[in-house]
């Protein structure tokens, strides 16, 4: 019983890690395309320092 629980927990953790890696990869690909200025602008926009268009 405990062994099964451990296995399922292990699988969930692995899946989450995998999803996180994929998300980071996507972010990295995105970041490669945008300039430093765009990165700064997006940050200010997301944190509501700059009002939306």
């Amino acid at each position, binding site marked *: 019983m405990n062994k099964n629980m451990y296995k399922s927990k292990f699988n969930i953790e692995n899946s989450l890690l995998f999803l996180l890696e994929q998300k980071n990869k996507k972010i990295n690909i995105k*970041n490669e395309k945008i*300039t*430093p*200025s*765009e*990165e*700064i*602008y997006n*940050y*200010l926009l997301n*944190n509501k*320092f*700059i*009002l*939306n*268009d």
Partner: protein
Amino acid sequence: MQKIYFFIGTKAQAIKCIPLINLFLTKPNLSVVIVDSGQHTTITESIFQNFKHEITHINLFSNKENISKYSKGIVWVGKFFLKNIIFKTLKNNTIENQSICVVHGDTVSTILGLFWGKRNKCKVIHLESGLTSNSLFNPFPEEIIRRITSRLSDILICFDPDSYLRLKNKLKRKLILQVNENTIIETLGDLDNQKINKKDIITATLHRTENILSKKRLISFVKLLEKLSKSYKINWYLHEPTINSINKFNIKLSNNITTSNLISHEDFINQLKDSKIVVTNGGSIQEEC
């Protein structure tokens, strides 16, 4: 419209802010204003004269020459504080329509921009935050200025992971963004498709206080250039304070060292591309290399 003030005093500040200024100018809800501290007024004016967009300018200190002497610098800071920070603020700059003041780096204009922004109820963004020499008085006053500005600004933007971790550890409650590259990269064009032909040229600059106020250091720099001039053509681009120090210490330069005044950023970048070696104490030039 939301106002974004770019507080600029030096050539490096103007050049590194231009990519961000260009981007903000494309946003219809933002109004970009250049605020000139008057530190290197002729240089920053010439940069924005050739600018392709029309931008509102505010000159906070009207002077015809750059501040290149320390005595003039002290008078300038005193007058600036009295006129623009103690007695005068911008009109109609309410908290509802939150304005932003962007300051850059670690010059005297950086800290003046911080105080000016705070006095006018702006949120202050510090670009190139978090760099350090780990020595409070070296370089002076740059290190102190950078630390104070980081501490008092609202948003910190840094360009390398070390700066980010340092700021995160010291200033836990601040909003900090780490950008992968410095904005200066956007001013250099498409680097992958540029042909670079290196020649036997050395480009040299020297402007930091600790190097030009010390006769011993200045002479050792000149001796180094003289040694290198046996194998390379030396082009030394002189800042005004450096010329003043060379004249003050009566240092004779050999004919093998070609000196000239500062040139435009575009021409200087082309000069760097041609050079096999660059001898400098300028942080921005190291990044450009």
